[in-house]
């Protein structure tokens, strides 16, 4: 039997931290708050590590049951946790990166008046995220799902006195609701058809089912609806619009929630439901197309952004698109691999960006930076590691995971690969653009002069310290950066593909989850273009393909280098060129700068009609003329009727008694009549 892992402690530790800080934090000193937050978060990380230590002695999947929640007829949903390889990876990523970001936040948020509140929310987020990961059924997962949404809302709107932050929080929440709606419907469908939300039971019921080919069936519907949910949470087209706005939150939040963990929940959920998706090719195709489009689309927007965090935000959207692309082509383990490496390098990038912003006194516009390389060397070098990793420079984490995805995408369809490749090029370009603009050239901002005046926005908690102009961040911020940088560099080596002489241990590790349940052999050929990918396990790829794969690797490296070169040309060598290009591409550039007017489009398509419709039809039409009128008319009728009837209420007791007696007499007569008959 399995040893008792006490999984429940992992989410509950951060919750305890949140509770302590939430209730007592206001009165406690910053040091106490820090100690509580870091201790409970670190304890969760330690628990996760201890679980992974005992990994070999476990039979998987591991279940842990706590309490009955809903018991209704045949349907039941319990509070129970579930642990397998997939959960473990997520667990380690979330607790590990989360802990590092907690540490970083200590430095970053130190001067914020609501210091305790920040850590309360952060710990709360950890609780929900871990619940989401460890859930044994969709319902518990949904708790976590909604909970992280809540935490995200609270943290985006952390500086709620600022109007843009508050509305960004609301936007995130509302857009997420759209996705949650799809998720919920999917859950209802699951309950209706499988009578359960338990992963084991649902997948057990799904496994014998064949692959749905001829059109859309039940699994396709469920899959697409799940994907809608994932789109909301993971910021995919068309629901990505909230993520860039979410950058209103403090930078550690952006790093933790909107880059490393929460936004990957969608990927995790799709991967968790892979049994369903594998049997619904149309749904898979939808996932792949959405992922691919998002990856490309967001990357192009990222090129024209000037806000350092916005660039990273669109980059995140784009990278998430990669992950979905991987899922869509059936390469779930590649998706998760990228998820992990992305957590490392994107967390790193955000934190480093935060450090930069910190250094220049709250300025986020890259055009007002430059030449920071010498001033903040630690930040520069860690950021360089992150940039190289995301750009896919060989030997770093991003290279391996992105390469794995592209290779699998090619196996599915060259179109995915091509778009992915172009995206990789653009990614490399805008990341190096950011790099060059920030760290090279001359300093263009005025932070030197105006560093400590109160004029710059109070957000990003700069405030009191660092009066000496541009300066390096404190150690407490640098150490997490370094650790993440190291991880970004070496994190990829757990999944070196066979073609590069590795044996892709990551894929093998996840294999029990993703390969135990692929459709039966006779069926997979029908999957069509994805058939090949599902047949093979990367660990044992045929040698004949190794050279091809190597070729593709070379091409993507080339694309990355090309991006670097272009960025070097435009933003280091010939700085006048970008404006010229922008001028020549007048309309298109405008469009990109304005993010393809998507927000405006949404406003026109959804928000305006909604407001107009609510005002004209629902309020002035339905509400006033139908509902209110019904109520008023009912009231009028009642009033007129009672005007007539009230004469009965004379106040005369005997009169009342007479009515009662007469009524009783009628009842008695009726009873006797009924009895006699």
């Amino acid at each position, binding site marked *: 039997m399995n040893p008792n892992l006490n999984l429940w402690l992992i989410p509950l530790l951060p919750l305890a931290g949140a509770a302590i800080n939430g209730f007592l934090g206001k009165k406690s000193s910053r040091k106490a708050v820090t100690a509580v937050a870091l201790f409970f978060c670190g304890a969760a990380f330690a628990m996760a590590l201890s679980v992974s230590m005992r990994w070999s002695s476990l039979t998987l999947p591991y279940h842990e049951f706590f309490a009955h929640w809903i018991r209704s007829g045949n349907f039941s949903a319990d509070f129970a946790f579930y642990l397998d390889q997939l959960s473990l990876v997520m667990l380690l990523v979330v607790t590990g990166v989360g802990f590092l970001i907690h540490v970083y936040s200590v430095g970053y948020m130190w001067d914020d008046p609501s210091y305790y509140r920040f850590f309360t929310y952060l710990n709360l987020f950890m609780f929900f995220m871990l619940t989401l990961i460890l859930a044994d059924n969709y319902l518990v997962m949904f708790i976590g799902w909604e909970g992280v949404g809540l935490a995200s809302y609270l943290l985006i709107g952390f500086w709620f006195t600022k109007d843009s932050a508050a509305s960004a929080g609301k936007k995130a929440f509302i857009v997420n609701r759209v996705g949650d709606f799809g998720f919920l419907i999917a859950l209802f469908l699951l309950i209706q058809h499988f009578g359960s939300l338990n992963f084991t039971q649902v997948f057990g019921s799904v496994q014998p089912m064949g692959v749905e080919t001829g059109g859309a069936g039940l699994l396709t519907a469920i899959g697409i609806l799940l994907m809608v949910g994932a789109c909301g949470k993971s910021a995919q087209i068309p629901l990505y619009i909230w993520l860039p706005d979410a950058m209103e939150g403090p930078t550690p939040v952006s790093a933790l929630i909107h880059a490393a963990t929460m936004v990957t929940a969608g990927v995790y959920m799709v991967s968790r439901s892979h049994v369903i998706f594998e049997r619904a090719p149309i749904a898979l195709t939808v996932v792949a197309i959405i992922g691919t489009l998002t990856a490309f689309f967001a990357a192009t927007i990222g090129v024209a952004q000037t806000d350092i965090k916005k660039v990273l935000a669109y980059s995140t959207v784009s990278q998430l698109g990669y992950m979905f692309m991987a899922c869509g082509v059936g390469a779930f383990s590649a998706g998760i691999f990228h998820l992990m490496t992305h957590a490392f390098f994107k967390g790193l990038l955000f934190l480093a960006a935060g450090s930069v912003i910190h250094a220049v006194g709250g300025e986020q516009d890259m055009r007002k930076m430059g030449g920071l390389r010498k001033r903040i060397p630690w930040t520069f070098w860690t950021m360089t590691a992150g940039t190289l990793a995301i750009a896919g420079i060989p030997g770093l984490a991003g290279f391996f995971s992105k390469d794995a995805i592209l290779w699998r995408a090619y196996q599915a369809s060259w179109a995915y690969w091509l778009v992915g490749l172009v995206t990789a090029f653009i990614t490399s370009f805008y990341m190096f653009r950011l790099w060059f603009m920030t760290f090279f050239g001359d300093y263009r901002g005025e932070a030197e002069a105006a560093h400590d005046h109160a004029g710059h926005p109070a957000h990003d908690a700069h405030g009191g310290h660092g009066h000496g102009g541009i300066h390096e961040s404190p150690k407490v911020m640098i150490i997490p950066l370094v650790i993440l940088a190291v991880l970004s560099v070496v994190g990829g080596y757990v999944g070196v593909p066979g073609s590069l002489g590795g044996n892709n241990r990551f894929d093998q590790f996840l294999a029990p989850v993703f390969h135990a349940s692929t459709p039966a052999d006779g069926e997979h050929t029908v999957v069509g273009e994805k058939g090949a990918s599902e047949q093979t396990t990367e660990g044992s790829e045929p040698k004949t393909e190794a050279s091809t794969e190597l070729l593709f690797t070379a091409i993507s490296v080339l694309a990355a280098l090309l991006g670097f070169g272009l960025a070097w040309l435009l933003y280091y060598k010939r700085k006048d060129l970008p404006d010229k290009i922008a001028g020549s591409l007048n309309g298109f550039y405008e469009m990109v700068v304005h993010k393809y007017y998507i927000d405006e489009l949404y406003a026109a398509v959804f928000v305006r009609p909604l407001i107009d419709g609510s005002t004209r039809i629902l309020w002035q039409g339905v509400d006033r003329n139908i509902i209110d009128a019904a109520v008023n008319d009912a009231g009028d009728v009642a009033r007129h009727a009672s005007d007539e009837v009230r004469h009965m209420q004379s*106040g005369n*007791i005997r009169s009342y008694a007479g009515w009662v007696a007469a009524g009783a007499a009628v009842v008695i007569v009726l009873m006797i009549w009924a009895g006699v008959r």
Partner: protein
Amino acid sequence: MVPLSYYLLLSGFLFACGVVGFLIKRNIITIFMSIELMLNGVNLSFVAFAAHWHALAGQVFVFFVMVVAAAEAAVGLAIIISVYRTRETLNVDQVNLLKL
């Protein structure tokens, strides 16, 4: 030996007298007494049924009815006193407003 129906008839008669008294009497105290008359009629049927079915529980219910009657008499008469204090009449036909 007396048939059960005789007891029931007597009980019903008392009850009906109570109802009629409630309807035709004007003095609030007499009306109250009519209620007691109804209760007594019901009690008689309880006891008669208790004897008929050999179930002592019927007699126990009489006690409960008596307790309720006692409580009702106490509260009711107190109300009558306070009504009389404010209106100086016991005629229910003149006590037909909730306010003074």
